[in-house]
């Protein structure tokens, strides 16, 4: 027998020293931690940390296309108008320094107009010319004034096919757009540095005109020498020059992006919190842990199942909700897609072609129990794609199709679907059997799809489940290859559903179901002609009744978006328009150490 201690010498010496070194490292790192603790705390007290799923793509309003980018761009760049969502009516409001589209009635904290570059605007009686008067005391961070030319310059970029901006749709009503190419010389005029004129080829409702003309500008003097071909690769993209409450301090891609309060900003003012760090934390569990330990202050989209444990573990956390903008649905192919791809002919789908069958499917699905089991108080039954939050247009008279398997069976029987020998419904030798597809990595949809499968099985429908990788799933969806699927939509705050329900299947790229109803097309067209959104209310009420009757899809539930906040943040307002709606007004309560 040999003694353990002997193993370490002489041949084991190197191993022994390695071991010692490791112990030493662990010890010193712990020591280092407490030594650096105060400094870290001081840093934390002036820094708000937001956990993000993914990094920003471009810090350039023309190119930025992720939500993270939009949030950050909104803090760096100035905007022509401020916009707010009026929770009383569900209408968007646009605010210039001295003018508002509508006076909001609600007592909610309102967005300060001081962030707007526009002093005021006038809209011609024919709804074709929008003239902004800009303020003359707005400056880029390098001291140059923000002028009307900056807007015209940037709109040229938004419209340039070589730049391929995701926002070129905003230019679709400008003069020339009807002929395929916006005529910028006529469509946007800048007679002097504080006057900016937009011309439309057709009458446009005022709120839409304001929405579409208030895209974020770039400083023309900084960007004018960059060729459109090099636009995406320009080094300026990583060193943005803005004018908003924050400026970029550092950006370690895929790690963290730090914004510092911009001391000279007057649009509207330097941000309250000195530093805002956006940290990339891809794993959900880790984001949650970090919120719990206080390493980050804000985590978006917390799953309802985690609330109780989270709030119990740390009393300094609160969960706030906002909505309703997002819903899940089960899509039924209304048309026989194989036939449509083969001959272009539209014939009803053998299973889901009839509105009565689709209604039966809706009645057979226990939506309440999906909500009770997963979303709890953060879910609301969904009847159509007009959100209850858009109060002005929402049809509150519609009563949901309740869970009623008996009714479902009767409806199916009336359609000729009768139980076969194996217990599965049959009609003319065809079994009621199909595959319900959904995308991978979504726990909520997995949960719901299992309940749906059981519900349908109990009335004699064989529903198989298949989970596809997201890219594959969405490609199949876009190519109208799936018979039944589960997916979701996030709605825009302006109602414009023709892309999803329009009868022209070539034009309506997102009409995955192939649903066709001429009256619906007509209603959408009529609503668009109204120059004031509330004027279209009657059309939208009828629109909802039609969808409720025809059930082109089974609408499942609206979801509240749930965000976790550290209680050290004060003054945050959640808004349907975005979680970081008034982030420049947030404050951080100092930690106990500093207060002592």
């Amino acid at each position, binding site marked *: 027998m040999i003694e353990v201690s002997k193993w370490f010498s002489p041949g084991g010496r190197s191993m022994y020293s390695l071991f010692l070194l490791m112990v030493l490292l662990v010890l010193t790192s712990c020591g280092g931690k407490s030594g650096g603790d105060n400094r870290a705390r001081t840093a*934390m007290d002036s820094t708000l940390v937001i956990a993000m799923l993914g990094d920003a793509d471009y810090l350039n309003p023309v190119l930025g296309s992720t939500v993270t980018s939009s949030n950050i761009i909104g803090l760096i760049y100035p905007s022509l108008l401020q916009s707010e969502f009026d929770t009383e009516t569900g209408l968007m409001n646009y605010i210039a320094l001295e003018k508002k589209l509508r006076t909001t009635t609600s007592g909610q904290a309102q967005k300060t107009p001081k962030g707007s570059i526009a002093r005021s605007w006038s809209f011609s009686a024919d709804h074709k010319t929008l003239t902004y008067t800009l303020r003359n005391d707005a400056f880029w961070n390098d001291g140059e004034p923000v002028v009307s030319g900056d807007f015209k310059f940037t709109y040229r970029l938004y419209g340039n096919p070589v730049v391929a901006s995701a926002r070129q749709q905003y230019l679709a009503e400008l003069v020339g757009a009807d002929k395929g190419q916006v005529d910028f010389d006529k469509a946007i005029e800048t007679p002097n540095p504080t006057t900016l004129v937009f011309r439309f080829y057709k009458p446009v409702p005022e709120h839409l005109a304001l929405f579409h003309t208030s895209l974020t500008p770039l400083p023309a003097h900084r960007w004018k020498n960059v060729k459109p071909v090099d636009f995406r690769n320009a080094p300026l993209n990583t060193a943005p020059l803005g004018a908003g409450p924050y400026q970029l301090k550092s950006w370690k891609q895929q790690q963290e992006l730090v914004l510092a309060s911009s001391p000279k900003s007057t649009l509207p003012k330097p941000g309250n919190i000195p530093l805002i760090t956006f940290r990339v934390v891809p794993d959900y569990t880790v984001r949650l842990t970090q919120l719990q330990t206080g390493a980050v202050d804000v985590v978006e989209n917390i799953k309802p199942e985690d609330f109780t444990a989270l709030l119990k573990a740390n009393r300094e956390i609160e969960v706030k909700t906002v909505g309703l903008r997002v819903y899940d649905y089960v899509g039924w192919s209304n048309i026989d897609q194989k036939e449509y791809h083969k001959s272009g002919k539209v014939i009803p789908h053998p299973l889901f072609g009839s509105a009565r069958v689709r209604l039966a499917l809706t009645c057979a699905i226990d939506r309440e129990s999906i909500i009770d089991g997963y979303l709890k108080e953060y879910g609301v039954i969904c009847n159509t794609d007009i959100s209850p939050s858009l109060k002005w247009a929402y049809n509150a008279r519609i009563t949901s199709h309740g869970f009623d398997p008996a009714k479902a069976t009767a409806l199916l029987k009336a359609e000729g679907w009768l139980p076969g020998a194996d217990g599965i419904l049959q009609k003319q030798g065809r079994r009621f059997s199909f595959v319900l597809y959904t995308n991978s990595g979504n726990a909520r949809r997995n949960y719901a799809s299992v309940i749906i499968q059981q519900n349908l099985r109990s009335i004699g429908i064989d529903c198989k489940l298949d989970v596809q990788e997201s890219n594959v799933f969405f490609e199949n969806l876009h190519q109208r290859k799936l018979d039944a699927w589960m997916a979701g939509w996030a709605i825009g705050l302006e109602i414009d559903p023709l892309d999803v329900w329009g009868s022209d299947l070539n034009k309506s790229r997102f009409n995955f179901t192939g649903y066709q109803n001429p009256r619906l097309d007509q209603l959408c067209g009529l609503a668009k002609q109204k120059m004031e959104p509330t004027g279209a209310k009657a059309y939208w009420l009828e629109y909802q009744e039609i969808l409720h009757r025809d059930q082109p899809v089974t609408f499942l539930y609206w979801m509240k978006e749930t965000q976790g906040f550290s209680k050290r943040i004060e003054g945050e307002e959640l808004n349907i328009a975005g979680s970081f709606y008034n982030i420049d007004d947030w404050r951080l309560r100092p930690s106990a150490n500093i207060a002592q």
Partner: protein
Amino acid sequence: MLRYIFKRLLIAIPLIFGVLTLTFFIIRLAPGDPAAFFIQPGISPNVAEQIRAQYGLNDPLPVQYVKWLGNVLQGDFGRSFSRSQQPVIEVIASALPITMTIALLTLVANFAFGILIGIISAVRQNSFLDRFLTVTALFFYSMPEFWFALMMIILFALKFPLFPTSGLNEIGAEGFGPVGFVIDRIWHLVLPVTVLSINGAAGIARYVRGSMLEVIRQDYIRTARAKGLPENLVIFRHALRNALLPVITIMGSSLPFIFSGALFIEVIFAFPGMGRVTVEAIFSRDYPLIIANTFISGSLIVLGNLFADVLYAVADPRIKL
């Protein structure tokens, strides 16, 4: 031996090119569209088309291949689709050192602990210590690493907040001074490297134990003992050197494994390394980045195997290359 190495490297070139060509076609034939993100309501239908044109995806496949080949031969792997058109080489240059650090630290920890535990188990065969170590090693060896990582986070970051859960440094670490910064970095690496190495070390310990037991029974060990050599000299100089031969082969081939192990560690601990780059590139169908990553990992596997063969010859003079 130099001649051998040169020959192996020469063979590696067409091999890697074959792999890249295969990857090039497979990813383009797989479903999914790099411009898919731009196909959504509210975005003009032209955008996806314009983006595809920018990426050069509208050309026929053979044309794309020839263009790509020309660029790669000049050392240009193109620009990333998903990472704001950053040159692919830049993306990798910033990610590779991070993964390399983790992989090397893990490799060292793997073998240090694995060999140590293996020797103890072998020398004290069938003792309580041996059984304890064997069971523990098996326990860790069969544990899924991602689960173990999450458990470590729950234990050492949540219940006993000793270590941080993500990132390479604390917020404001730049202000700690150079020593503080390095210590902070090491402090961030403790959990991930532990997770990655425990599993590997457990496996290596089993190997070392097995081969050590075999060697200890050999005649020459008995001879060494009989001529009165001290026990530690017998174990370390005579037995270990021979017992390590099979382990050396593992060393070469374990580098790619550690690399792929680093993949989920990077996602869980939010390190911007190669693993995360690869996963994100695949999910967003970032063709140039996927190919460049394949190039790196392919080269590593080839080099790793070569390294193992060379080490083998170095450790055992009987083997001639």
